[in-house]
């Protein structure tokens, strides 16, 4: 096994996931076997291949930019309607900056 428990915890930290010990134990072999499988791509020489950065078929004339004009959008109430916590017309979050 190439992947270790500490790698799983490190990636979970990067992804803002707090995994339980049980989850770490369950995911380790699963993630390891999937990543091993992905190494299959190394069989291919891709030295002279361009990465596919754009999926939209080149023949499709794609005016991907529209004019930048103000459009009607949500009211404040609509934007806040799904907030888990709100106050004073804002989203409320736990303390970010410590008080002096």
């Amino acid at each position, binding site marked *: 096994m190439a992947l270790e428990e500490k790698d799983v915890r490190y*990636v979970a930290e990067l992804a803002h996931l707090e995994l339980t010990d049980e989850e770490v134990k369950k995911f380790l072999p699963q993630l390891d076997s999937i990543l091993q499988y992905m190494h299959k*791509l190394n069989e*291919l020489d891709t030295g002279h291949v361009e990465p596919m950065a754009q999926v939209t078929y080149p023949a499709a004339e*794609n005016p991907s930019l529209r004019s930048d004009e103000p459009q009607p959008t949500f009211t404040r109430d609509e934007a806040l*309607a*799904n907030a888990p916590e709100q106050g004073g017309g804002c989203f409320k979050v736990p303390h970010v900056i410590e008080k002096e």
Partner: protein
Amino acid sequence: MIVTAPLESRECADFLGFRPRNNLSISMDLTTLTISEIQRLLSRREVSAEEVAGIHLERIAQQDQQVRAYLSVCPERALAQARKIDRQVAAGEPLGPLAGVPTAVKDVILTRGLRTTCASRILENYVAPYDATAVERLEAAGAVILGKTNCDEFAMGSSTENSGFFPTCNPHDLTRVPGGSSGGSAAAVAANLATVSLGSDTGGSIRQPAALCGIVGIMGTYGRVSRFGLVAFASSLDHIGPFGRTVRDVARVLRAIAGRDPKDSTSADVPVADYEATLDENLRGVKVGVPNEYFAGLSPEIGDNVQKGIDLLAKLGCSIVPISLPHTDYAIACYYIICTAEASSNLARYDGVRYGFRSPEPELHDMYRKTRDQGFGAEVKRRIMLGTHVLSSGYYDAYYLKAQKVRTLIARDFLEAFEAVDVIVTPTSPIPAFKLGERVDDPLQMYLADIYTVTASLAGIPGISVPCGRTKGEPRLPVGMQILAKHFGEARLLQVAHAFEEAGGFAIA
């Protein structure tokens, strides 16, 4: 808790005063009709759109306790739309191409004022503030939206067992999965709980459940249908597309939802053809490519049927051309690197701040971590972890960049093949519907079953799955045949699929 669909719809159907007319002198079952049959009855005033909607809501109340295709039902919205159609009929106004058509929508597609959960606990109480463009276009064409269907959480899965709420059952055998991730949308149409439905397809999530449920499902070219209002999973792969019981129904829905949308910068400015106008053209001279890589090692229970399907296409005048798509074997690895990378990025937005579930922690970072750990299910976490890993410092080139290069090779395989053939025919899934619970603990095995569908997703080309008979053993389960075409070749796809259907291909034995 999500209120189960049957309860909700029954209460609301009573509340809204819907009663099936006792004097309904029509012997046919309104829930088995095609779009044009419904519209013929409407325009002759033999039935009202309200009756059609009401009978579907009744049926959902009675039957969906077994199938569990719906996460929520919206009788008020359905009946209001149906009554609007009835007023148009009464006034002699022209009807839209989907007028009165009972439609289900996968719960990853936003519907204004209705809960849109993505089958995830983290969005359990999320009420969408706007309609997806596809939903807007459906309703503008007269469609009657009945409710929101179950799926794998955030469309991640191939069986609908990853739903955060409950699994959906295959209407052909309730002990089996309907496929996924759009399993609820496929099961609803297969069980006559909707005439058509919308699903989303990232690596096969429309085509595979269509195959496992014995119906038709199409994924258009990347950019054919606007994704505005589709909750993002993997943005370079996500599509919206329809399910139906006939090719003609699917053609009509696709035409209604396709086309440029300024709200989705990836939607293509390519004219939308009148797909129904070319459905009846004969297939003489159409070149059908059969890629050997898709048949090597295929079990006979699927392979025999698809071979018979190909034989039937030959009888219809197609020339069958053996072809090779040499990078097929690398598609699963390539796909799961790209889709998990994009998912880990897209799902970063679920932080418990602006919407969705929040774990009540006093410290910000604890709040993020606990919210995400408690809100996401196992498969979503696995994919976020994989995606974060393949994008992380030191691994990006080895995984993500490598996969993007392999994606170029896979797309190139198709472009070269389509210089010699008009369409490509393959199995949709290497296996028929499997037992609920049978594969949940082996994610890699689950991923490998997507082998025949992820290739078209990576290349950005359109694909359709059509029924192709049933397996021989008991129970006899639906088999699906996939047809692929070049970019924006939807009209050709639908034409071949329709001729196949007309020639009895769906019931091939």
